[in-house]
């Protein structure tokens, strides 16, 4: 699940858990993202990190912890509470040859910056016929699940995926977080990097050597496209961000009932890896897509269409969607009712399993 681990040759020195140059380490997603940003700053002198509380405090989720002390106040700094300014400044920095890595402290705070993101960042490269690329990696702690107040639990992937010129990605575990952020921060295009804040603290193995196992991902080993997190024969669960770990739990429970569920982590929400979707569902012939965002015009509709287009002749049932509801994201007390839970996903699977052609 966490990718390629180098086979040990008899001649290789015995790896020590604390030895420098070690390839695998257990980290939380917060630590993995912090490590990735530290390395990006070290490798790219044009990379700069800024946002509300990103500097001295190290971010409200500690993602930029220690980076200002290490890399200086010109590379990592605090901004006023003005998201339009944070993203507007990113446009200017990108024009001047920098690689801005701004943070919007919470998903719901991205709305004041939508003008800068959609009207400037997304189309500057197109507008300038490629002379003003916008290499901006916008980090957005996203989705719900931490009992936070209003504007702190929103899922904006469909909104941004709809805008030509933006790329959108969301990691599901510490390994993916490290590799996807390092990859995103080297892209010449703007990337909306949606961090699942409910998964910041869970630990997992991070293999620093390669993002994906040999043969998966892109030929260069870059973390492009979707990734099969668990193989199965009967049905494909499709998810991204925090919902991937929940789908893996559901797959474990479904196995108790004799249902063999494959879990596909979309990773890139834009562009969507349609080939991986179709390859998985061609095999399983059934699909359920799961997301926290509301149902109507959510990304599940796009996924369902891509699957239907590629697998229409072999599908055993219409693609099912298990999602949040068409209401504003609720207060913390109600979020367990809103976010797709294990039983709602199992019901979705059951509806697909018992579908009979008319």
């Amino acid at each position, binding site marked *: 699940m966490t990718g390629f681990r180098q086979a040990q040759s008899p001649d290789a020195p015995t790896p020590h858990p604390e030895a420098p140059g070690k390839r695998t380490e257990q980290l*939380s997603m*917060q*630590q993995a993202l912090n490590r990735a940003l530290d390395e990006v700053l070290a490798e790219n002198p044009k990379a700069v990190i800024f946002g509300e509380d990103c500097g*001295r*405090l*190290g971010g*409200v*989720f*500690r993602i930029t*912890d220690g980076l200002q002390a290490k890399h200086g106040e010109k590379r990592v700094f605090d901004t006023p509470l003005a998201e339009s300014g944070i993203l507007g400044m990113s446009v200017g920095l990108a024009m001047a040859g920098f690689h801005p890595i701004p943070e919007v402290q*919470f998903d719901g705070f991205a709305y004041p910056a939508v003008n800068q993101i959609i009207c400037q960042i997304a189309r500057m490269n197109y507008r300038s016929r490629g002379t003003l690329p916008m290499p901006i990696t916008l980090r957005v702690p996203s989705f719900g*699940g*931490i*009992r*936070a*107040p209003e504007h*702190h639990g929103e899922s904006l992937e469909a909104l941004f995926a709809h805008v030509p010129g933006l790329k959108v990605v969301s990691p599901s575990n510490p390994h993916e977080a490290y590799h996807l952020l390092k990859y995103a921060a080297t892209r010449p295009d703007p990337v909306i990097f949606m961090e699942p*804040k*409910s998964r*910041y*603290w*869970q630990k997992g193995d991070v293999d620093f050597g390669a993002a994906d196992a040999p043969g998966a991902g892109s030929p260069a080993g870059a973390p492009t496209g979707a990734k099969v997190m668990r193989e199965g024969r*009967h049905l494909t669960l499709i998810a991204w961000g925090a919902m991937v770990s929940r789908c893996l*739990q*559901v797959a*474990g*429970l*479904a196995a108790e*009932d*004799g*249902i063999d569920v494959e879990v596909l982590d979309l990773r890139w929400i834009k562009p969507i890896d349609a080939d991986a979707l179709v390859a998985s569902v061609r095999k399983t012939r059934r699909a359920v897509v799961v997301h926290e965002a509301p149902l109507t015009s959510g990304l599940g509709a796009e996924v369902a269409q891509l699957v239907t287009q590629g697998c229409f002749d072999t599908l055993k049932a219409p693609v099912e969607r298990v999602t949040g509801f068409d209401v504003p994201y609720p207060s*913390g007390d109600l979020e367990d009712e809103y976010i797709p839970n*294990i*039983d709602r996903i*199992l*019901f979705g*699977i*059951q509806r697909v*399993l*018992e579908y009979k052609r008319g």
Partner: protein
Amino acid sequence: MAEISFPLPDLGEGLIEATVLEWLVSPGEQVERNQPLVEVETTKSAVELPSPQAGKVVRIYGGPGDKINVGEPLIVFEVPDNTAGIVGTVPKEEAPKRRVRLSAVLDED
């Protein structure tokens, strides 16, 4: 473990500084949220500042009679990494619970 610094907050009405009267906690002490940390005096009044969070006190700034400017460090807490978020709570990792069982006749055609 992570350290979180709490600067002297704006005590209102455009005050730009406060004088420490007495510290009510000391380094090494575990404090709870809302526990009084320090008594400070402004040109308007003497007030007790409640702790913004739970944690272990690592450092305090200024002794009785010292002036501290608004926005300058007042106290530093040490907190476990997984409670270092400032908004919201860390979700508990628990074994998955279910009420729904799956049933299907899978024809392998």
